[in-house]
């Protein structure tokens, strides 16, 4: 329709205008003079990516302002590059014109890290979705950032290989986004997080230069580990355009058990008993009764509705007998610790439906309330039972439900507060509750976020979590790589 009508940098509020200007170190007056160049910026971007790579109608801008949180702020233009070279040119332009640039994939983040609060360019990587190489000898995959994680998994599994990280959003998140937030998932208990599989990265720097770091070697101690620096940097240090990922042999056998506990406390205590018994399951997931009820309402799987908790435990490996032995050990331990019933999935279909249930859990909680705030605090696993108990106490104190579920085996919990944002009084309570959750995690030796990232939602607690020195070191890194502060400004660091 009216593609050329949209005016770039039409700020939605004086506040965001001010913030953007500060971020760029420019005055308001200069921002206004730049408005005259708007059409010229769109034209230049169009030259870089072609016409179909630049979106600027009000409708396009309205849908690129959110991720999977409740935050929303429209960008001024959306750019969909197809090559690292195009990203490089877009960044050079952004640097020249001091335009904030926020990188995003499929927008399934849970920390508002890809919400463009300062407007500017929403650099969307979804069209860089080619799998460039799967090297079966070295067991590596070379992919573009926009590849959907599940698509990569399917492609390598056809060749007998395995890419383990499995955030619940595997079908609707991209490798680039997974790396930028160092995504986790249930299988991380046994296999580690996304960062453990990053061997190399292609990163476009804030001035548009293209950096290649890492390679196919498993061992490499030459210089600083830059790929680790960019992993989890949430788009604040550079734009990840390609990744070289480590693969492993695909486990041939897997067994999943659904364990019912009448008491939540028994379930959370059992987690450590299993792990201390020398068994390392691939996953060890905990869900409380509200979580079970929500999944059941969404999927009708016949889950038990009269227990306080279930554990979802999977053992996998390449030796069937070993997998079965592990499952037996798990079953025995659970029974001894008060499990009412241990049901092992009969076949692949049943197993798949259990995991589908687990993956749809977080969104299905929205059946209970219009809004939810899901955190991902992580504690040393010895502290899991105490954390669970005290989270319930927070819920009672503030009279708002907290659903408890998560990757209990690695100490990563997802306490989720259910509320209605339209009630301002509830929103105040939610903020207080989140603050208490974070304080609890820190007190027990844990951290604010295990796998979602900081974005803006956890920024206020960074000082408390890291202390001044760690923050200062991190700020210096940021200044060295992005001196103009155009890359995802306003994220990660406290104000």
């Amino acid at each position, binding site marked *: 329709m009216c593609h050329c009508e949209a005016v770039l940098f039409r700020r939605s509020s004086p506040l965001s205008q001010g913030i953007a200007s500060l971020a760029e170190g420019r005055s308001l007056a200069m921002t206004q003079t730049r408005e005259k160049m708007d059409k010229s910026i769109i034209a230049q971007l169009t030259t870089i990516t072609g016409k179909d790579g630049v979106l600027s109608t*009000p*409708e396009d801008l309205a*849908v690129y302002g959110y991720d999977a949180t409740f935050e929303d702020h429209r960008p001024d233009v959306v750019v969909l590059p197809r090559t690292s070279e195009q990203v490089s040119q877009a960044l050079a332009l952004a640097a020249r014109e001091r335009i904030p640039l926020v990188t995003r994939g499929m927008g399934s983040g849970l920390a508002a890290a890809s919400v463009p609060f300062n407007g500017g360019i929403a650099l969307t990587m979804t069209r860089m979705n080619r799998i460039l190489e799967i090297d079966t000898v070295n067991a590596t995959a070379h992919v573009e950032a926009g590849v959907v994680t599940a698509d990569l998994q399917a492609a390598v599994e056809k060749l007998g290989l395995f890419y383990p990280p499995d955030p619940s959003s595997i079908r609707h998140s991209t490798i680039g986004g997974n790396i930028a937030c160092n995504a986790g998932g249930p299988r991380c208990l046994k296999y580690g997080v996304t960062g453990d599989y990053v061997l190399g990265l292609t990163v476009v720097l804030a001035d548009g230069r293209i950096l290649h770091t890492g390679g196919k070697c498993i061992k490499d101690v030459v210089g600083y580990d830059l790929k680790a620096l960019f992993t989890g940097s949430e788009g604040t240090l550079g734009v990840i355009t390609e990744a070289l990922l480590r693969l492993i042999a695909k486990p041939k056998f897997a067994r999943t058990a659904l364990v019912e506990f009448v008491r939540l406390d028994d379930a959370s205590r059992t987690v450590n008993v299993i792990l201390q018994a020398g068994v390392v399951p691939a996953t060890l997931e905990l869900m409380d009764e509200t979580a079970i009820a929500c999944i059941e309402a969404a999927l009708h799987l016949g889950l038990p509705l009269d227990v306080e908790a279930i554990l979802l435990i999977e053992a996998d490996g390449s030796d069937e007998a070993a997998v079965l032995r592990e499952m037996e050990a798990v079953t025995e331990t659970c029974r001894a610790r008060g499990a009412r019933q241990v049901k092992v999935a009969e076949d692949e279909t049943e197993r798949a439906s259990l995991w589908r249930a687990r993956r749809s859990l977080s*969104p*299905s909680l*929205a059946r209970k309330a219009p809004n939810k705030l899901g955190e991902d605090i992580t504690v040393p696993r010895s502290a899991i039972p105490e954390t669970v108990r005290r989270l319930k106490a927070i819920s009672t104190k503030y009279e708002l439900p907290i659903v408890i579920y998560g990757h209990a085996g690695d100490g990563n919990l997802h306490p989720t507060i259910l509320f209605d944002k339209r009630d301002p009084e509830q929103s105040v309570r939610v903020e207080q509750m989140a603050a208490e959750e974070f304080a609890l995690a820190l007190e027990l030796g844990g951290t604010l976020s295990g796998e979602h990232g900081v974005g803006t939602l956890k920024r206020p607690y960074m000082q408390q979590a890291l202390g001044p020195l760690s923050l200062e070191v991190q700020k210096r890194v940021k200044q060295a790589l992005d001196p103009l502060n155009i890359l995802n400004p306003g994220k990660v660091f406290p104000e």
Partner: protein
Amino acid sequence: MQSEVSEPSEEQYLNCIRCGLCLAVCPTYREYLTETASPRGRVALARKGLEGELELSPNLAEQMYACFDCLACNEICPVGIRPADLALNMRDLQEQRQLSGWKQTLFGGLIPKPGRMEAATWPLRIYEELGLRRLVYVLGLRRLLPHQLRDIEAMLPHMPQRPLRQALPEISEANGETRYRVGFFLGCAQSLMFAEESAASVRVLTRNGCTVVTPKETVCCGMPALGYGRTDLVREQARFNIALFEKANVETIVTDCATCGSTLKDYGKLLADDPNWAARAAEFSKKVRDVSELLMSIPFEKPQGRLEARVTYHDPCHLRRGQGVWKQPRALLQMIDGLEFVELPEADWCCGSAGSQLITHYETSLKVLERKTENLASTKADYLASGCPGCQMQLILGVRRQGLDVQVVHPIALLDIAYKK
């Protein structure tokens, strides 16, 4: 035209938490990879439009028309939002705000009038009958047509000489004892474009103890009007069909068109707020069955003839997700001796037809179709069965474009062949 505008309600979008699950299953998202072409994007646009944050602009309406209504997002949403339905409701809102005259003519004047539809398709029959079509192919004249028209031409099945509505008797007696008295709903597209298949449906039904009553005055089920935002016209058509079948005095209403079936089954919901019609509509909808659904629910005669062929099956969106019918057609096909059934990869992924998307959204429709034909090629099947005329026409085009040696058929037509052998 209407005194007050009815808008989609808050419950239809309020709880969308923007998780993004629906992006993975949306055919238009997977082609364009833009949020604007995704179910989540459409829900956000609807919400912002209804809440006044965005203007209800023509471009916003266009995003609602870009949806293929394949219902995959409705099915996957863990919160229970139905983005595909919301897109249809938004089209309806657009029509209420600004009525397009051509839609009135097409959906109010032409499609619901069987006689006029037959007259309108008369040139197609002449085109076929006089051998013009063969001539066009032999002389290579097709190449002179513009791309899109060439593709539309390629979709045309072989047209019967007489419309089925005229050829089929009002009552087709069961072979042997009448065990069921069923009404047959003549779908516009199925009975006009694939008349021989609908005739086969009636033969298969009579063979299995059904006396088939075919009211000749049926009007369009209403799906085309629904797709173009004219729910008011759908309701008119629904009332007409309900009254018609009440007179037919049947226990079951059968259709061999996936789209008709899903619409007819929704009459109850469509007229739920109409005090004079709610109960009658609910009663009507309760009786509706897809032909495969009915056949699998009654004692069914296994065909004696063999059909040595490799057969695969494409799930019409409005049969699988619209009606939850997907096991039955597969089971029916597998009853035929000699037939080797192969599952089509991504069998329930939209084929890109979506009614008229090939005309209104040509490029997207073809891209979605390509994914389907690539999957089809991998099966090496001789027949592709699918019980929806829209899908069939689209699939015929896909087969021709790809140069595959596959025949597109209604699953019942294969049963009919096996009975005849």
